[in-house]
């Protein structure tokens, strides 16, 4: 039996539990110095003067950089725009924004780095940063997308004729007239708040530069080392060969550790300028201010439906507040791309305006826009059910894309590879005894307790591959090598931010080579050692990186079999690799296996390490001369179901695999306070072939925790001047072990994809959107107040409390409870 499909815990677990992890900030270097940044306290201002004299005099201060020096020594860059290539996503409709690591004359959000200081110790660096005096002249602030879209808005970016950076539009059929003719029509607005991933490890960078070699070594808490190398090399005007990026253990990424940050370029800049190791570890407030936000979107919808709940036509006019147009604002386009998610609608119009404001740029966040799309669709389904007086599950079942309709083309051009949404929902309903719950609910109600059950469904496409993008590509590379002792090393271009794909990749390779799992080492995150790859995003590491490793291992396997066949005097077709040996398929069970097949003749089997040894040490021998020496293979894998040849209307398929999840939650709502407690959560998840159920479930648990956080707790709040009010973990509320439901279970359904050789889809972003939707649905169910529609996240107590009171009849309800 192979490893694939087995429950195998992460191979780094014990090391990490013993505190032996090596995170970026743990990397020790001789004689380091420390960077601290001066950040703008204004959301929109001109910089009139920077005075560093008071900082310069402090003992222990080594260097201070102003914007002019940085602009002279580097080139503009961003995640979306590496300077080494001529792609410029921010250059839309003639709108340009070129920015360096330090703001020169203009700051567009509060928290933007303005000056940088390096000192002998971190406290002195912080002290010196305090001493830098910056004179600002305030400019009118555009604090919200609503303001940004108003005619005559002052403009978040000087020189732009409006605040629109991109307008995504998709349409099929004739939604307007279909809605006009529909028996039922609902309208409304769904709102998803601005929030952030908050990996426990803050961003950290440690860089060193050697004049002797002319090379820069950067240890980075990053998800994409090779991309990072491109950006650093480009920003510093170095050959990428002279930049080595090493990704040690990463303490969570969730999308926000994509490269291209001001801070990282500054660390590299100083390392080269000072020829000394430079370290920077982010303070948590800097994370909130400047690492990158996500998800702030509203959806105005209009939906026509039939009496039986069938959605006939849908129009969605969405607006995303993307802050400044660096970073991962393309998430807003992904939101539009996913609509209407797992539902079939004949007439559909989707519009998404990505609008700039004087807030922090977007960074990636788990879901990458898909979570907002799913949340929107789920709220629409619940509204249809309520308006039509139908069961919420029934409405979903009647609108799901049927299981026999795959591959299914959505309005955006998205080509949904495979799915069985009804199956997942049916399996979920089997886990959640609705009838028993209704009895429990009624019994609780007599005791004044309000329990509710909510159902959510999410579609989480994975493996993003954008045309003409240097980062978001659906291919990757892997090298598999076996040493003369038979040990295997896998070097991959994909990385793990802590999600465990190294264990899954090792399992795939061990199975393919028939070797014990503990003889396989996986090396990731080193641009000098690993083949070029795109790192970790969009759940690609196992799905794409694992497939590349499989392809490379397969090549090795063939060579081993070929040599093994000679050694065993057998036909390669008759051989198998398993348990560390190559054996004739008809071999008797051990221990007789290594005995000769007949007296004096060849053996039944040979250990793989002996075959490896033979290839290395006897390259001119009879058994090996027919193969190329060495046991190493590098292969690249390009995922299926991506279509960049534009079809009609320029639509593309840029998400190859479409995992999904149905989820149910049970909540208790305190009617008098609006406080929501999640009691239970059950999910049925489908990511195609499951390589390691333990890893998939654990990832999904984490996704669900972030989904519940998004539903109930997490929110970045800004005031009218675009000042961020939540810059610490005291104010940005995350769920703890106490808030998580006492019962949480994840079951699997496996609908394989044809896009990967194993049939595996991505699983890393699952679990976020479903719980967001299910919680909103469950709270409504618990309150049972007609007309109550919770369309805005998060459902913090005051919002729920206010919503209850805004709906007629709610007051009596509160009194009886």
């Amino acid at each position, binding site marked *: 039996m192979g490893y694939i499909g087995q429950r195998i815990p992460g191979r780094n677990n014990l090391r990490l539990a013993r505190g032996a992890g090596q995170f970026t900030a743990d990397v020790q270097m001789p004689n380091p110095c420390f960077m*601290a940044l001066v950040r703008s306290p204004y959301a929109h201002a001109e910089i009139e003067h920077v005075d560093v004299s008071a900082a310069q005099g402090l003992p222990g201060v080594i260097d201070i950089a102003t914007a002019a020096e940085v602009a002279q020594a580097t080139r503009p860059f961003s995640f979306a725009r590496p300077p080494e290539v001529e792609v410029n996503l921010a250059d839309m409709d003639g709108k340009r924004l070129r920015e360096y690591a330090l703001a020169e004359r203009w700051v567009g959000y509060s928290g933007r780095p303005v000056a940088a200081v390096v000192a002998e110790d*971190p*406290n002195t*660096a*912080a*002290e010196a*940063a*305090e001493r830098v005096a910056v004179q600002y002249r305030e400019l009118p602030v555009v604090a919200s997308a609503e303001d940004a879209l108003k005619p005559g808005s002052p403009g978040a970016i000087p020189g732009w004729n409006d605040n629109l950076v991109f307008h995504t539009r998709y349409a099929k059929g004739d939604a307007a007239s279909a809605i006009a003719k529909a028996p039922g029509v609902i309208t409304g607005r769904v709102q998803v708040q601005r929030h952030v991933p908050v990996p426990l490890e803050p961003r950290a960078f440690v860089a060193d530069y050697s004049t002797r070699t002319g090379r820069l070594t950067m240890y980075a808490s990053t998800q994409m080392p090779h991309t990072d190398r491109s950006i650093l090399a480009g920003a510093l005007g170095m050959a990428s060969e002279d930049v080595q990026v090493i990704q040690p253990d990463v303490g969570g990424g969730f999308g926000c550790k994509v490269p291209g940050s001001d801070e990282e370029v500054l660390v590299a800049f100083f390392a080269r300028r000072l020829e000394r190791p430079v370290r920077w570890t982010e*303070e948590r*407030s800097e994370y909130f201010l400047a690492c990158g936000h996500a998800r702030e979107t509203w959806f105005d919808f209009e939906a026509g439906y039939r009496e039986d709940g069938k959605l006939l036509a849908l129009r969605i006019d969405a607006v995303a507040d993307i802050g400044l147009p660096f970073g991962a604002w393309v998430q807003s386009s992904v939101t539009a791309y996913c609509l209407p998610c797992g539902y079939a609608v004949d007439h559909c119009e989707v519009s998404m305006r990505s609008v700039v404001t004087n807030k922090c740029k977007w960074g990636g966040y788990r879901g990458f826009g898909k979570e907002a799309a799913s949340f929107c669709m789920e709220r629409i389904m619940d509204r249809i059910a309520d308006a039509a007086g139908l069961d919420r599950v029934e409405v979903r079942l009647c609108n799901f894309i049927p299981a026999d309709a795959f591959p299914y083309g959505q309005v955006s051009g998205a080509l949904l590879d495979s799915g069985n949404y009804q199956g997942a929902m049916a399996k979920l309903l089997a886990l959640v005894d609705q009838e028993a719950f209704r009895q429990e609910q009624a019994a609780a109600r007599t005791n004044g307790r309000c329990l509710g059950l909510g159902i959510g469904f999410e579609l989480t496409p994975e493996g993003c591959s954008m045309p003409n993008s240097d980062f978001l590509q659906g291919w990757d590379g892997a090298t598999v090598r076996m040493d003369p002792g038979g040990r295997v090393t896998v070097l991959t271009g994909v990385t793990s931010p802590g999600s465990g794909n190294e264990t899954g990749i090792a399992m795939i390779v061990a199975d393919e080579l028939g070797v014990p799992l503990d003889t396989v080492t996986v090396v990731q995150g080193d641009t000098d050692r690993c083949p070029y790859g795109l790192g970790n995003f969009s759940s690609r590491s196992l799905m794409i990186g694992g497939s590349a490793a499989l392809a490379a291992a397969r090549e090795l396997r063939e060579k081993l079999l070929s040599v093994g066949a000679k050694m065993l005097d057998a036909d390669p077709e008759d051989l198998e690799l398993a348990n560390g040996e190559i054996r004739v398929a008809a071999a008797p069970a051990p221990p007789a296996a290594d005995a000769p097949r007949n007296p004096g003749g060849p053996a039944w089997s040979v250990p793989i390490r002996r075959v490896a040894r033979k290839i290395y040490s006897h390259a001119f021998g009879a058994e090996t001369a027919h193969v190329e020496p060495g046991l190493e293979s590098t292969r690249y894998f390009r995922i299926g179901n991506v279509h960049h040849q534009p079809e009609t209307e320029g639509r593309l398929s840029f998400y190859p695999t479409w995992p999904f999840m149905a989820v149910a939650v049970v909540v208790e709502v305190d009617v*008098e*306070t609006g*406080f929501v407690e999640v009691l239970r959560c059950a999910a049925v998840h489908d990511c195609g072939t499951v390589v390691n159920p333990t890893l998939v479930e654990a990832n999904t648990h984490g996704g669900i925790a972030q989904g519940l956080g998004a539903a109930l*707790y997490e929110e970045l*709040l800004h005031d009218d001047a675009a000042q961020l*009010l*939540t810059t*610490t973990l*005291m*104010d940005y*509320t*995350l*769920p*703890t072990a*106490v*808030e998580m439901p006492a019962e949480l279970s994840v079951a699997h359904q496996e609908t394989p994809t044809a896009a990967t050789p194993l049939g595996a889809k991505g699983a890393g972003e699952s679990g976020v959107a479903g719980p967001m939707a299910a919680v909103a649905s469950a709270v409504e169910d618990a309150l049972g107040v007609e007309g109550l529609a919770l369309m805005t996240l998060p459902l*913090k*107590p*005051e919002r729920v*409390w*206010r919503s209850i009171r805004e709906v007629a009849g709610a007051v009596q309800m509160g009194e009886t409870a």
Partner: protein
Amino acid sequence: MIAERFDYQSPTRLADALRLLAADPDGTRPLSGGMTLVPMMTLGLAAPEHIVDLKRIPELGGIHEEPDAVRIGATATHHDIATDPRVRLHAPLLADAAALVGDVQVRNRGTIGGSIAHADPAANYLPALLALDAVIEARAKRGGLLRNATRSRRIPIGEFFAGLMATCLAAGEIVAAVHVPKQLAATHQGAAFRKFARVKGNFPIVCAAALVERQSSGERAGCVAIGGALPIPVRIALPGGQAAWAAGEVETAIRQAIDDPMSDANASADYRLEMAAVHGARAVEAACRALDDGERSA
């Protein structure tokens, strides 16, 4: 990362600490558990030039039983208070409030003196101490030439808070201890503490402490104290002269007592007021239940 330089002293004698505090009251901060002051320094909100650590001063620590009260030293931690058998026996309301401060690590380190002196209106202790009529023992250096002369005064908790995060402590004066009058036996008095926060370990939006007793006439008397609604905690005497409180009566009393509630991003003023009323009433209800249980078991 703390940016500003400071010196740190950790005297073992109270007189030394008070002298250090008196030397430059504006530039000096007393330090106890540090659960508030250290993050404030890290965040750049506080930048004292001198820190005087009070933890190593024996007089400021410990929990002692007095005839009518329990004296809790300022540097007693929340964990000490939540688990001390004397506090659990004689001031269970305070022990309950302590047990709900932050999380385990915060309770292991943070101290009652620090919490009281910081006077965050939402801090758990304040309504509990107010309901229990606690008395603050404050110490300061005495003026004049005597190097080690100190002065002590006792401040009823109701007079201690001067405004938002402000107390009546004079410059250089510290909280040395809290004297918490003993609660009556469970057969005669019921108490309950309630904390309302977004997640359990967070700072509360409001918290409430209730204390009720049955008088010899059979009538109930008591009070409920609310934290988090106003810049200082507020104590509300419950309407007397009845055997029980009617539905909504406690809420009404609380609403009347809270004029112009605070608001912030977690809770606007009207919601905060309503939460004060709801949780205050729930605390009273729980205290009544405890009293009933106590009476029954007698």
